[in-house]
């Protein structure tokens, strides 16, 4: 593009006189903090999440997950729940348990394990339904998603989006429930970004979530639930064989 070239040329001219000054060598990558043991990381994560207004539950065993989500849905008074595909956990079970408990379940697409199918036919099929999807999602009481990774030092959940795990899951419903495997908790941000890696960041939308949506725009007083979820529950799962 001509305009881009013109601006790049202008920048290059401006830089010409000082490029050789010191200190312009690449800065080494941030060193990820050494991983503590799982229980310690999980408890630090829980503390930090609670400090920003979220709640951490567990660690629980994988087979307890469905019961745990149903109990949470009842506690939060949810009549409808949206679910995406899991990352390492089976959310299909969860969906069935919710339905059995009389809660309306909206699946983003048929939930299946395994890699994401990238077929254009499905994309075309989705097209006219977009607004319908948004509108339905906006009326749902809560949603369950699984995090790809978490950060202990800040209480942050890292979520990658794709066709089966749309970003709206952790954005539109007022109650957000996020499932997390304990081995995916990293000590710090550098560790989490290293685990996710540049390829995944290019291929998906990545969202780092630290607590429920909040604002301090009125006299710097903190209020939860501005545009996104008003509550955030993270369920930590610790598989037995680990």
């Amino acid at each position, binding site marked *: 593009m001509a305009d881009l070239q013109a601006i790049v040329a202008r920048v290059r001219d401006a830089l010409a006189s000082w490029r050789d000054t010191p200190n312009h060598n690449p800065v080494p990558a941030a060193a990820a903090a050494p991983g503590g043991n799982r229980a310690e990381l999980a408890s630090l994560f829980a503390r930090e999440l609670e400090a920003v207004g979220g709640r951490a539950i567990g660690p629980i065993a994988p087979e307890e997950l469905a019961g745990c989500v149903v109990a949470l849905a009842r506690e939060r008074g949810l009549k409808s729940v949206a679910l995406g595909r899991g990352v390492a956990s089976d959310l299909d079970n969860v969906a069935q348990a919710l339905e059995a408990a009389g809660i309306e379940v909206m699946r983003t697409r048929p939930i299946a394990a395994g890699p994401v199918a990238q077929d254009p036919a499905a994309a075309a099929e989705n097209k006219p339904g977009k607004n319908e999807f948004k509108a339905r999602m*906006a009326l749902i009481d809560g949603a369950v998603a699984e995090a790809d990774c978490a950060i202990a030092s800040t209480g942050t959940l890292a979520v990658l989006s794709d066709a089966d795990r749309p970003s709206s899951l952790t954005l539109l419903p007022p109650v957000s429930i996020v499932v997390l495997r304990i081995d995916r908790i990293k000590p710090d941000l550098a560790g989490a970004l290293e685990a996710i890696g540049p390829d995944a960041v290019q291929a998906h939308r990545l969202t780092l979530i630290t607590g429920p949506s909040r604002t301090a725009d009125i006299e710097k007083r903190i209020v939860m639930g501005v545009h996104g979820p008003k509550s955030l529950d993270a369920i930590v799962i610790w598989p037995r064989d680990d």
Partner: protein
Amino acid sequence: MAASPNSGNFFEASERGAADRELQRKLENASTRHLEHFAHTRTEFPAYEAESSQARRIKEEAIAHLDELIVELTRKLEERGCAVFAAACADEARDYIVDVARKAGARRVVKGKSMTTEEIGLNPALEQAGMEVLETDLGEYIVQLRREPPSHIITPAIHLSKEDIGELFHEKFGVPYTPEPEKLTAEARARLREGFLGADVGITGVNFAIAETGTLIVVENEGNGRMSSTMPDVFIAVMGIEKVIPRLSDVPHFLEVLARTATGQKLTTYTNFISGPRRAGEPDGPREMHLVILDNGRSAMLADPVMREALYCIRCGACLNVCPVYRHIGGHAYRSPYPGPIGSIVSPNLIGPSTAALPFASTLCGACKEVCPVRIDIPRILLHLRWKETSSRNFPGWPRAAAGARAGARRFARIARYPGLVRMLGRIGAIALRPFARRGWVRRMPAPFANWTRIRDFPLPRPRRAKNAEREDA
């Protein structure tokens, strides 16, 4: 906007701000709370110093290779179907965005917080094209309802109390008056949720752009940046050329430092990494994505060896909160979307000659330099801009005034060696100057000191009793 706080020049506007005790109370309130948060996070984050110098080094590297990084970022984004437009000036950026919105048949545009779109005056242009523009950051929404510009880059409604906002909502929406932030926020949530779902175009700013992966990072707490970039079919991101950083692994050095200095958080609630439009099969996200990269005076800053480091700024707003001038006159007095110390150095380049007086709005106390997470030497740049302003233009009376001030300072330096003499002259001055003073300040001194007050006021000497003075001398 007849009664806008922006009317008049900087000096009139700053006098209005300085006379507004209520405004100062609000600013004092908010900035004190901010400084407490900041002091707290700084003590419990021992890595702050190390992280902030890494952040500085990465910015130095990034700006030194800006041409290559812009090319890399653009290539990566275009590969994934994001349109990239480079705008040399504000008009070009505005026209492009209005054009994209018009082609999309947009009736409503939702915006996340973006100072860059304030810089290019985007909202009036979209409105003129017949579109409804909805600011969705709570603070921006509030000031938009008042038809006002934001007065702080992080906390746009910092100049308003919860009572002001309660009255505003009562008046605009006919809801019962309440000063409770929770209820006011809930009211805004309901109204803006509807706005998001019916919007055709979403616009946000960009905090960082990663060249390596072609990724835009949008940092926020409310979720409105997420909403603006996923709900509408068309998403437009607007950023200055200086936002590019080299690698994904650079990101940790910035995010924590930014969150801590801007709001005292460890990390903001949402950090969005956006690498392109919606992919096949995805039920949400924009079908069409555009990035506008704006020069608008930035390459000129880059060419100036002193100004250059102003491009390292990550817009955390910390320098506003510590600045005694900002805290006294408020953000509107600057008459620029970028107020405070950082605003005083970037506005003359990004906004233009109407802000040429801003570099003079400083006591050079250095608090801004102290607090800056990327250690920009703001006082040095202020002096540089003052020098440029006074030497490049016809500044009537300036050389004489400067010579007079220099001579006066030299004379004072000789006298100051003798504390007794200073005290004596102070006592004499207090009596002799009283007829010329108003409220403790002498606007115009009699000859031979007239040159001193040509460009500034002189405080009426207030001699202390000898006992106190000696204690301080000791």
